[in-house]
């Protein structure tokens, strides 16, 4: 396998943009990324797109060539990847696989979602389609409901509290307030987080990520060619995608995302590192409980101790191992298909030292963790500088 490097990154702001189309968001991210890498469309050999539900959200299918055409990119394989909230991570994993295998040299990966043109109940319904619609969906399970049931069980087994959950929201909002591309640039207090409107007990509105529009893109090449495009290549040291059952009631233990644990083990092994070597991480906090479980599944803290880890401030911006310095999905926003690619951009930006006010002190080895549904797809990527 050939080593692979990220040589270009590009993101739109995440937010509610009534005047923007899905295509225009994806094109903006793609063009920013090509400019960053100094790559022209004619050099790109394949296009991988992460998108969860463009057909349902905006009524457009055949999205990969649709977007590629607007980027001036034709005559190459253009494919959309759908893996619920891990659609972006899955597109990235397969793009990296193709470059590592020697099939392609210069590959563009983008992720995009346009969600805010639908009402919240309709968005809730479309998102529920990432679960088992014949089982939990039929019974009335929303995604907040599935993660609420995960939170309840985690609280029951480990003594996790609502304050633990709220600590994640407070920290991610504090970080997001400093991120110029974040959807929600607003600091919140513990009191506000605890008093939020109830969505699905015990999760309040402050425990849930945002319904957002947005896009992100990266360009990857073989490491040996990285210097043609940038002085600051970011190496993909380890990457894995894994799967588990879609239905929450089919999983033996819902307080852990087994697929994440497995993906992390594989990615660490490929990168020749262990959890304790990771200096910072962007994790999939679609709900606050998901960040707590991610810190456990990734091996940063013992099983069941994620809540205390968050409450003690050990995941904050200036802590030993910051989690979601970008503000996470909670504050940055969660345009579903864009999220996994956006995480790669955020980790790469830190490694390049370009994160401005959010720049971390230790930033040579970072991790991105993208989760699909209630854990049926997981992608973990370990990245480092050269």
């Amino acid at each position, binding site marked *: 396998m050939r080593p692979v490097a990220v040589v270009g990154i590009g993101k739109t702001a995440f937010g509610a943009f009534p005047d923007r189309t899905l295509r225009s968001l994806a094109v903006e991210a793609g063009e920013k990324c090509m400019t960053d890498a100094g790559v022209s469309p004619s050099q790109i050999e394949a296009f991988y797109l992460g998108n969860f539900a463009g057909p349902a959200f905006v009524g457009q299918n055949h999205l990969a060539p649709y977007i590629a055409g607007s980027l001036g990119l034709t005559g190459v394989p253009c494919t959309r990847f759908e893996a619920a909230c891990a659609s972006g991570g899955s597109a990235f994993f397969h793009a990296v696989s193709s470059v590592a295998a020697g099939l392609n040299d210069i590959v563009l990966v983008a992720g995009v979602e346009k969600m805010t043109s639908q009402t919240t109940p309709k968005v*809730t319904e479309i998102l529920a389609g990432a679960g088992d619609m014949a089982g939990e969906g039929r019974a009335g*399970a929303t995604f907040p409901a599935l993660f609420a049931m995960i939170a309840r069980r985690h609280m029951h087994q480990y003594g996790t509290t609502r304050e633990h959950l709220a600590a994640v929201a407070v920290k991610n909002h504090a970080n997001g307030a400093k991120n110029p591309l974040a959807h929600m640039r607003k600091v919140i207090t513990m009191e506000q987080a605890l008093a939020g409107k109830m969505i*699905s007990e015990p999760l309040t509105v402050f425990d849930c990520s945002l319904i957002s529009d947005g896009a992100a893109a990266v360009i990857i090449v073989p490491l040996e060619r990285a210097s043609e495009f940038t002085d600051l290549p970011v190496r993909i040291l380890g990457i894995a995608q894994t799967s588990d059952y879609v239905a929450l009631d089919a999983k033996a233990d819902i307080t852990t995302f087994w697929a994440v644990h497995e993906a992390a083990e594989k990615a660490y092994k490929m990168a020749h590192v262990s959890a304790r070597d990771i200096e910072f991480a962007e994790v999939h906090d679609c709900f606050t409980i998901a960040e707590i479980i991610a810190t456990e599944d990734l091996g940063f803290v013992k099983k069941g101790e994620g809540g205390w880890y968050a409450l003690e401030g050990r995941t904050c911006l200036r802590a030993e191992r910051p989690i979601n310095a970008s503000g996470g999905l909670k504050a940055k926003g969660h345009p579903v298909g864009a999220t996994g690619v956006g995480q790669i951009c955020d980790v790469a930006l830190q490694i390049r030292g370009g994160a401005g006010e959010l720049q971390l002190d230790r930033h040579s080895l970072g991790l991105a963790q993208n989760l699909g549904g209630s854990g049926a797809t997981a992608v973990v990527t370990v990245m480092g500088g050269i």
Partner: protein
Amino acid sequence: MNTGVIYTETVVHAAPAEFVADAPYQLAIVSLDSGGRLTARIAGERVKIGDKVELVETRDGVEYFRKQ
């Protein structure tokens, strides 16, 4: 298949479009005494983890359990 124990539960306040009229409603994963787990609705009194429940009815393809 008719009895079990609550493995986890939630009360849904923000419902999907199809179930907006039902909200708030309690949803639970029931560990069935006959084996396996099932996501179902709760009828009547609210339940918590560990409560014993029994099947009341199946309506529109959804099982409704209540506290025993």
